[in-house]
């Protein structure tokens, strides 16, 4: 009996030792354009501190697999924050497919396939302002030690 428990614990320990530990970090950034010494305009990304309506924010989500096992079927889902309107996907890992939801995350599809129901009960194509979620679906497993980022732009209303 005791032996069986020990084995079970050992198996669990071993299983725990081989793991995928995925980290996710979100940052809100804005573009700042400055002129360098050579008179060229240089655009840099800084943490979004001064944001007023009409400004675009770049949301960057960095991910990393700190574990020892590949993470499969990786999906990153980002709700569009309230008061923000999705404008475009900024960057996406190769092989990841992007889909959008316009109904609070129930259905994800290419934007052109999305519809919403307007106030009169009529179906119409979804507009960017209707988008509620953006989702990246990875085709390849995320290997141990692999890291990367996805990002999208949104406009503060």
């Amino acid at each position, binding site marked *: 009996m005791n032996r069986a428990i020990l084995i079970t614990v050992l198996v669990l320990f071993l299983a725990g030792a081989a793991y*995928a530990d*995925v980290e*996710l*970090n*979100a*940052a*809100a950034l*804005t573009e700042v354009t400055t002129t360098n010494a050579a008179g060229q305009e240089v655009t840099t990304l*800084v*943490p*979004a*501190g*001064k*944001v*007023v*309506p*009409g400004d675009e*924010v770049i*949301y960057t989500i960095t991910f990393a697999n700190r574990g020892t*096992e*590949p*993470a*499969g*079927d*990786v*999906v*990153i*889902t*980002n*709700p569009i*924050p*309230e*008061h*923000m*309107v999705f*404008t*475009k*996907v900024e*960057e*996406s*890992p*190769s092989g990841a497919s*992007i889909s959008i939801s316009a109904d609070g995350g129930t259905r994800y599809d*290419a*934007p*052109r396939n999305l519809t919403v129901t307007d106030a009169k009960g009529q179906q119409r*194509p*979804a*507009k*960017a*302002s209707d988008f509620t979620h953006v989702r990246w679906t990875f085709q*390849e497993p*995320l290997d141990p030690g*692999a*890291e*990367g*980022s996805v990002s999208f732009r949104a*406009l*503060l*209303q």
Partner: protein
Amino acid sequence: MSNRRKTNLFVFLLAGALAFGLSSAALAQNTASGTSITNTATLSYTVDGNAQAPVPSNPATFLVDNKVDLMVTTIDGGIVSVVPNSTAQVLTYTVTNNGNTVQDYSLTAQISATGAFGETETFDATNVNVFVDTDNDDTYTAGTDTDLYIDELDMTETITVFVVADIPQGQVNDDVASYDLIAQTAIGGTGGTQGADIANDNRLDADDPTLVQIVFADGTGTADGARDGRFSSKDGYKVVTAVLTAVKTTNVLSDPFNNAVNPKAIPGATVGYQVLVENFGTVTADNVEVIDSIPTNSSFLVGSVSTVSASAATVTFSNDGGVTWAYGPVAGANGTDPAVNAVRVVFATVAGGTLVQENFSVMID
């Protein structure tokens, strides 16, 4: 970063933009300052085909800052016509809060060297005041519209503002006085109290996602620069008044010997006087009075007064040099009344660009 690759999703997004008419300009942009915007992403994955607990990201949060943007526009649609010696003449403007925060605005009417519509400034109005349209009827109401600053104008709201001034006497036709109405953004939030003017924004301060910072986003008005928390619009007064000229001509109409053929000015001759009054101005002159004294050594021919006028012309006579105008002429044997020494015609109106005429005759003594 090995598997990160920037992917241009232009085609994907272009299709979306075309299909859905994506236009950032069409989106309402008025999220109130102080609103906290938080973004959290979630990552789900499997290990060996087994779903693992989804991983949430940290929340990325910032506070919406105070966008200061305003618009001042004159709504008179053209320079405002005024007449000399008139009081409480009104220039009308609107002030709109295009920012994302309730603001106060202080108001200044500043004399301008150049006119709103290309004119040159030629005079200053007097008793110049700026009043807010307190009763919200878009019309200046003396004694009611008395607020001197805009109190608590909410975002996207518009209020009417008046510049009210007097026009000095002695100004002539086409004189122009121009004013820039300058609205300066001030701190709002306390009703009934004029907030301090916001002289500078926080552009020199480091961004702070935890503070509501002020960002000037206003454009350039007629008397202010871009991104200065102010906006301005030009409007003006133009004097339009009646300009009257009178031309008097004399004709000998007949004499006792030549009668009407080449008559000469000898005793007993009849002399006709014609007075033409023309209004070269653009507004109607009322109660235009023409007084003629009967020359010495001549006598007024009773019944010789005639007028040409679109309006009523009232003829009166004086036998006391113009002190009173109640004398009734009585014709003597030769048709004259030597007691008449002045003739007065009052034309009720002379419209701009028109003329009136008065005729009367005397006999040389």
